[in-house]
């Protein structure tokens, strides 16, 4: 017997709201199966399970918000007997609603409990790790006592409130405004409190970026890369492809970065507990700007081993799902480095801020035509400004320079990518 817990989908996540269960008690699950949808500051995320077995008991119902680490369900290993119901026997948990249909609104007079129900595992099992609620500083909701009491009476989710009081605190007036907004909002297709909240994402970005600038000693390198060969090759490669399958320079950038990281592995991974932990693979976090504002950088897994066509498909799929919801939990937690490419309407150069605990971010600016010296004479070439912001605790500028040089070298041989 083991517990399926609320995962941490980033260093800045403290809690998540369960939107729906995609598996029922008794269902067999395999490692990697999506079993639940959880709403976070980054939108609704599909949560995978990392252990095979049979889903046993559901401990958290849709609509409930629980801290990271809270057991949401118990999992029987294959072949193990079902856990005997504790005495006095409890009614079996309600079957989760069909995934296609929205779960019903919980009645307002029954607010979700603020404290997750305590799970007592059998004595021979290691205890489920439940972090102390609100133990980590900085992320606790700043709210006045009167506002907190009123919010509890109205069953309002504190994490979704924006404060206008002293030092940004949520005040009674904010609660009343939120209550009015909730009543007047059109009925949502999903469970209460679900949907992309730009303010919540803004706060998440603010927390992560502030932490990065506070903790990470960044160093920065830039290099201008001639793209004539790459773009010429791309044009030829696209000639026979239908529009939906055409390759964009972004695919080359991702592939070249991923391949280059094989040679400079100390830029691919995480800085944790005063030490560098290399990434288990090269999972490129691809920065995607969201239309409502905000930013998310989900993983393209094993980007160094994917073909350009596979990468292009992955990029399109990620952008689509990032904007409509449906990113998987592993896509949020796995990136080992971030790549940001500004595209045709971007600025010429981007100097990124590292997303902790990653140790590097590679930036590609807009492709522009520049005067370029070729064999002692001037030519006009399409070039891109390539940049690296890296964590000086994990690597030194020399290694960072090697990465940029290797990316440049690879982009000169697009046919080999």
């Amino acid at each position, binding site marked *: 017997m083991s517990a399926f817990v609320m995962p941490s989908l980033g260093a800045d996540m403290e809690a998540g709201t369960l939107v729906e269960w995609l598996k029922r008690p008794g269902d067999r699950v395999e490692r990697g199966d999506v079993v639940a949808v959880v709403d976070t500051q980054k939108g609704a995320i599909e949560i995978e399970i990392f252990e095979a077995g049979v889903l046993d008991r559901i401990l958290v119902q849709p609509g409930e918000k629980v801290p990271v680490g809270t057991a949401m369900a118990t999992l029987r290993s294959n072949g193990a007997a079902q856990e005997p119901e504790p005495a006095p026997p409890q009614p079996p948990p309600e079957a989760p609603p069909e995934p296609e249909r929205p779960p019903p609104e919980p009645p307002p007079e029954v607010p979700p409990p603020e404290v997750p129900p305590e799970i007592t595992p059998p004595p021979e099992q290691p205890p489920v790790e439940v972090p102390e609620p609100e133990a980590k500083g900085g992320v606790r909701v700043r709210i*006045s*006592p*009167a506002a907190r009491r009123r919010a509890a009476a109205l069953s309002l989710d504190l994490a979704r409130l924006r404060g206008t*009081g*002293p030092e940004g*605190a949520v*005040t009674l007036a904010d609660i009343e405004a939120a209550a009015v907004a909730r009543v007047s909002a059109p009925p949502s297709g999903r469970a209460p409190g679900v949907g992309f909240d730009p303010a919540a994402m803004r706060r998440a970005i603010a927390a992560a970026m502030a932490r990065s600038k506070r903790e990470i000693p960044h160093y920065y390198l830039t290099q201008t890369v001639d793209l004539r060969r790459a773009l010429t090759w791309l044009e030829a490669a696209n000639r026979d492809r239908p529009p939906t399958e055409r390759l964009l320079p972004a695919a080359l950038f991702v592939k070249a970065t991923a391949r280059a990281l094989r040679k400079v592995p100390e830029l691919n991974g995480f800085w944790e507990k005063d030490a560098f932990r290399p990434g288990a693979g090269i999972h490129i976090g691809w920065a995607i700007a969201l239309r409502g504002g905000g930013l998310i950088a989900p993983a393209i897994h094993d980007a160094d081993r994917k073909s350009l066509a596979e990468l292009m498909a992955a990029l399109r799929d990620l952008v689509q799902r990032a904007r409509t919801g449906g990113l998987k939990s592993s896509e949020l937690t796995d990136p080992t480095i971030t790549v940001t490419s500004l595209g045709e309407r971007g600025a010429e150069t981007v100097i990124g801020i590292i997303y902790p605990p990653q140790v590097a971010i590679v930036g590609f600016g807009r492709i522009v035509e520049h005067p370029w010296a070729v064999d002692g004479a001037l030519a006009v070439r399409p070039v891109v400004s390539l940049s690296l912001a890296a964590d000086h605790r994990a690597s030194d500028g020399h290694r960072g320079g090697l990465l940029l040089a290797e990316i440049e070298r690879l982009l000169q041989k697009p046919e080999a990518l």
Partner: protein
Amino acid sequence: MTPVRITYRECCRQAIREAILTDPRVFLMGEDVGRYGGCYAVTKGLLEELGEDRIRDTPLSESAFVGAGIGAAMAGMRPIVEIMTCNFSLLALDQILNNAATIPHMSGGQFAVPLVIRMATGAGRQLAAQHSHSLEGWYAHIPGIKVLAPATLEDARHMLKAALADPNPVLIFEHMVLYNMEGELDPTIEAVDIASAKVRRRGQDITLVTYGGSLFKTLDAAAALAQDGIEAEVIDLRSLRPLDVATVVASVAKTRRVVIVDEGWKSGSISAEIGMRIVEEAFFELDAPIGRVCSAEVPMPYAAHLEQAALPQPATIAAAARSLVGPA
């Protein structure tokens, strides 16, 4: 009867005169209260009218004449002891704390100490660090005595009578900048209580709790806030011991925000005590942190501009209030 124009100083004088004329047990003693007419001229002319038995000059020994006052009170008199300023009351602190406040208890109720001690308090007249203290908050720490802070003409005129009627030692702190304050006194009011706080201005957006010399600065701040659309409720505590916490809590429950204005220093002060009582009794009513405007934690400067900068002012009170009131 029509209201009469009168100063705070004259209110104090009339209160003393009336008390002496209506009760043969009452007399006043203190430094320079007789021939000189009082350091702040409160008792000017009373020696000539009432005689040396009732208006008594004392040697410059606070411990001695406060002790004599305690003895007289125990023996059945109703003494009014004037200590020139609260700064000098420290020389009599042993008498006040160890005798006046304790004798009724330690004698098992055999001796009451119906003593009234008046003293000037506060800063604002360039009397420098040794003569500008606000020590009423210290005295409010002591069980067994009562501590009053009349701010209005009405309280200056009538609190003394209630204090003399009280069987406990009562300390009255008169803020020295108030003596020259002139205003209208309602002659139909002939008595006040010495246990309750009073709401001096109604408002619903924030509560400003104050007393004594800071009351009028706070009312000025409230007027400035009103121009910004913030309606402040101003509470005049009047008595620092006992504290009328119920009136404060009722106001905070309405406004949900509070700033405490006190000329004393912040650390270990009556303002800290008031804030803590609010937290204890009205925590869930609060919609903002409790604010305080107190004197800067320095010995009071002599230079006028520095002294004014060290004291609570209408602008600093209004700023503290604005910081706690969200956008309208």
